[in-house]
């Protein structure tokens, strides 16, 4: 009913103008088709890229070990060596500190002995002086 009324009441000219006005605002069917084709092409090329990237990841993953070794060269060995050195140095420093404790103990023992000897010497000396007098 409303369509009929519209057809009757609105002159063809005006209708045509309005339709043209609307059509200008929308993409034409041919353009749509083209856009869809482009989008499809885009998706296909992306899919190819993803496949290529996946293969690349797979290849890199497989190659990781052999590839890392030449790149890092002697690093693991150097780290190991540094660790060994650090540990041995620490152990050596510990032994030095312990030796120092023992050296002080020996110094104290010697000091005590010297003191005793000196006391002994004094008595010796005094007796000698007395004998001379």
């Amino acid at each position, binding site marked *: 009913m409303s369509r009929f009324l519209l057809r009757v009441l609105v002159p063809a000219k005006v209708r045509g103008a309005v339709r043209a006005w609307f059509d200008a605002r929308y993409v034409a069917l041919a353009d749509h088709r083209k856009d869809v084709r482009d989008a499809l092409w885009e998706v296909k090329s992306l899919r190819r890229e993803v496949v290529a990237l996946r293969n690349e990841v797979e290849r890199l993953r497989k190659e990781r070990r052999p590839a890392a070794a030449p790149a890092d060269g002697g690093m693991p060995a150097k780290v190991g060596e540094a660790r060994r050195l650090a540990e041995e140095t*620490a152990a050596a420093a510990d032994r030095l500190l312990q030796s*120092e404790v023992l050296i002080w103990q020996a110094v104290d023992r010697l000091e005590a002995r010297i003191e005793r000897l000196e006391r002994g010497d004094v008595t010796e000396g005094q007796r000698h002086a007395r004998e001379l007098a």
Partner: protein
Amino acid sequence: MRASWREADGAWELTFRLDPEEGLTGTVTDGQRVELATNSCRVRPAVPAGEVHPDLLALLAWCVVAPWTRGRIVFDRPVSPRFAQALHDGWGVEAGPVGGTPRERGRTLAISYSGGADSAAVAAILPDAPFVTFQRVAHPRRPNRWTHYRSDTLVRLAQATGRDVTVAQSDLEFVLHYPRPGYPEHHAVMAGAILLADRMDLGGVALGYEIGSRWLGGGRYLHRYTPDNPMWSGHGPWGTLFAAAGLPMVLPVAGISEAMTMKIALSSKLRDQVRWCLRGDADSACGRCGKCLYKELIQAAIEGRPLRTEITADRPVAAKWQRRPPYGGQEMIEYGCARVPGIEDTPFAKAAEYLKPTIESTRWLERVYPPAIEEIPEPWREPVARYMYANFTVMDADDRRRVETWGMDAGAEGADAG
């Protein structure tokens, strides 16, 4: 042994020398063999100690050098006859020079605060007592190879409690070469309190040792009833020595188990600052060490929930609980295994199988052992007793028998295990 102190800029440096008959190897009161690394260490309290009674300096020195001392010790200033007598009676050691008067007990009780559940429980029971806390710092002569130990975190947590906290920094743990840096004697943890006893007017130091450590021979000191515990009993050599220096040790939670101290701590205001792990960061415990696993068992037991841990039975930290008992802190393993739902799917499954504990057989661990209260020196016995008897059931004759026969069948079990 000769021990001398030097004070410079608030730091107290102890230097000691071995007598001819002494060596690098010594024995701690708990029987652990130790080896000396170096012969000096420092203690730096956050506030200047001022004048310190010679008996206190001698006491602190003794906490460091006791394992290596044989026969006699010469201090750089005279100790009181009472202190010398205590050293003689406790260890058969002649101490000198002797002179001066003993130290008078002060009026304040300080808490030797570690941040763990046990000392947090002590703090909850004694809400006005100031904290003195020990902070490990590097030793100038030994590179620190033990940086996983987060002493800074523990201090920050202690300060976050809002209580009166005095930190004492020290490198004294580094005088130990073997087994690893640590307190030469357990009592060295009180270094700050000993040094500041005069300044803080201390008449006692409260520690978080619970029934396992005090009465059941817990920790590396194995698994038997120890009324005469040489480290922590009031009448033992250490108890007598601390009392002789006017600074008796006070063990407010020695009558209850670790599960109960944890319960007190986790329902106290200090809950958010409680931390028993020495490895975690500022936000949380590490959750990966043996101690975290052990404490998680206790916490799960008191909260009546399954164990929350990622540690599996095949991890090295869980290895000791795959073997047959006895275990250190076995009473708590029994308590946990009896209460944690789904224990058979945890690293404690084997232990549960060996021990076969039940809620009934471990109920004594929720009650208080009265001799521990009687051991607390006045004037602090009364308030602690009031707290304990208000919050816990007293052990009956059967419970007490469990305490007093603890570890008696260990020999038989050991023989059985071959």
